[in-house]
């Protein structure tokens, strides 16, 4: 091959290019601190990644042999052929699934790379122990992430039922611990350098695959924001571990950025649900919980239902209207209809704001993206802590497909399973209109006293159709 003295093919060049690459990645991600700088930041990060790939391809030996060249091209072409159309076509309502499957794909790549490393460097003592440990960490965490993400994708895409699927009692926990032990023991045995290595590599991959399935299957739909964030962190950390094993600084830095991001989001989401991450991973929340006091608590009164015409009058003559969207808005694809309503109200001089709960929807920031797609300016969207003091000054709050995040039981009923969870205090506004398909309870399976509040009116039906009818009535006034 080409002699190593060509500057582009020295390790100095690769190292220097890697430093430029990871600096651009960090700088680019820093752009995400504001919507104005974010587009540019994303592009800068992409340039960083391109430099990392180019420098890697220029590393001596990488192009050794024609089959290598062909195989690399085949891999890149397949990846491009799948990735580009997916990215260009995906609807914003399907973003949670997209992010889940992308997490999985990354974790899968890490696991495959670790597998090849181990198969290839079969001879005991080829790898120093410390490198093996990182490689095995990558293999286990990467494949947990791969399989877990696939299950999360299945649930979000509604290929699998969204409710928790779980073994009875604590047997699920024991099974998960057992699988984890099998994976770790196989890893330890491998490090000790046994002869039947293939068997133990398979043991790691199978056990962590089963673990990934078992951990995500019992988790209910409403806990998805936490799970997706957690899997994101896993993929990042496994990539960083593989980076250490391969002595590749860009992989380490990029992996750790993703690991940090996933960890931050996981904590934010868990805090917004007032639940610990281990409790969520243990699963089974929602659906299975038999709403304990469901019958007794309804003393507050009957549910009052209303019509689009009445809602339109109420909204049109209000000074301030707050819209609190939830997953129901995503399911009904109602974001554009909601934007129309907002415009109709604004043209009548009504102040309209949106109240966004951190865990509304199925992933961090889900509502923000949907409303951005519908051209809602981001400065109309208010975070929970900013909007809560405003509800007392609000004439009408329109709850669209949100349930648990508005449930006053989280504040008032110490016995409630969601007691302590921070909520949007919609019950403080002068009147509340809830758009809902039926009286079914939310994912937590808990009755919502908000619906029985005398100042609440329910408008049953498909959110998109209901909002469109209200808009038509407002415009006709």
């Amino acid at each position: 091959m080409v002699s190593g003295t060509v500057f582009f093919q020295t390790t100095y060049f690769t190292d220097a290019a890697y430093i430029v690459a990871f600096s651009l990645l960090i700088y680019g991600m820093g752009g995400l601190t504001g919507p104005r700088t974010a587009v540019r930041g994303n592009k800068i990060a992409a340039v960083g990644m391109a430099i990392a790939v180019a420098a890697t391809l220029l590393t001596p030996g990488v192009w050794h042999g024609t089959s290598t060249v062909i195989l690399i091209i085949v891999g890149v072409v397949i990846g491009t052929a799948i990735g580009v159309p997916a990215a260009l076509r995906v609807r914003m309502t399907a973003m949670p699934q997209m992010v889940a499957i992308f997490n999985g794909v990354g974790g899968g790549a890490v696991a495959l790379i670790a597998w090849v490393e181990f198969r290839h460097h079969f001879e005991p003592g080829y790898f120093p122990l410390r490198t093996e440990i990182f490689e095995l960490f990558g293999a286990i965490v990467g494949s947990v992430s791969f399989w877990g993400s696939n299950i999360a994708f299945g649930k979000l895409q509604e290929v699998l039922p969204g409710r928790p699927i779980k073994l009875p009692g604590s047997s699920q926990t024991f099974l998960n611990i057992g699988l984890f032990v099998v994976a770790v023991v196989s890893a330890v045995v491998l490090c000790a350098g046994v002869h039947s290595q293939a068997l133990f590599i398979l043991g790691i991959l199978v056990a962590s695959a089963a673990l990934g399935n078992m951990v995500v299957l019992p988790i209910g739909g409403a806990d998805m924001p936490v799970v997706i964030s957690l899997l994101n962190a896993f993929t990042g950390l496994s990539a960083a571990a593989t980076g250490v094993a391969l002595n590749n600084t860009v992989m380490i830095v990029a992996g750790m950025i993703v690991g940090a991001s996933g960890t931050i989001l996981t904590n934010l989401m868990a805090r917004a649900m007032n639940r610990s991450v281990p409790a969520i991973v243990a699963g089974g929340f929602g659906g299975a919980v038999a709403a304990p006091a469901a019958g007794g608590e309804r003393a507050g009164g009957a549910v009052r239902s209303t019509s689009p015409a009445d809602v339109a009058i109420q909204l049109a003559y209000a000074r301030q209207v707050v819209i609190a969207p939830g997953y129901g808005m995503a399911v009904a694809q109602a974001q554009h209809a909601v934007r129309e309503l907002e415009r109709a109200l604004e043209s009548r001089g009504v102040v309209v704001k949106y109240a966004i709960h951190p865990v509304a929807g199925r992933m961090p920031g889900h509502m923000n993206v949907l409303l951005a797609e519908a051209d809602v300016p981001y400065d109309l969207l208010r975070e929970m802590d900013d909007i809560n003091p405003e509800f007392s000054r609000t004439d009408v709050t329109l709850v669209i497909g949100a349930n648990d995040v508005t449930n006053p039981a989280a504040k008032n009923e110490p016995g409630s399973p969601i007691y302590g969870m921070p909520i949007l205090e919609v019950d403080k506004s002068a009147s509340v209109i809830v758009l809902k398909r039926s009286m079914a309870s939310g994912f937590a399976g808990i009755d919502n006293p908000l619906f029985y509040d005398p100042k609440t009116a329910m408008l049953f039906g498909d959110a998109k159709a209901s909002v469109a009818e209200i808009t038509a009535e407002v415009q006709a006034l």
Partner: protein
Amino acid sequence: MGTTFVIDLSVLVLAGFVGYSVISKVPNTLHTPLMSGTNAIHGVVVLGGLLLMHVASGWLEHVLLVVAVAFGTINVIGGFLVTDRMLGMFKGREPAKGSEPAKASEPAKGSEPAPTSKDDRK
């Protein structure tokens, strides 16, 4: 080898702190683009596939690596593209000609609809 490992570990730890402080500043509004952006960034594992391709032997290892490279490419290209698309949708309230819509809505706010609202609701 020993010192390389120590350097790698140092980079790992420092990158963790840098990542934490950079990402902590990302507002809730941008959490979905953040997740899809990090999807693109963990696509960096494609480098592992590229680096190992020439040392692999046998069809199994080659197939595994081709899949790994394909997966990594999906992440990198798909992730950056979808993030770009998504971020393009985030718009403020027309900062340049912000005065015009503001003027349009402000007189309306103060004038008739607001007072009449009280009467109509009663």
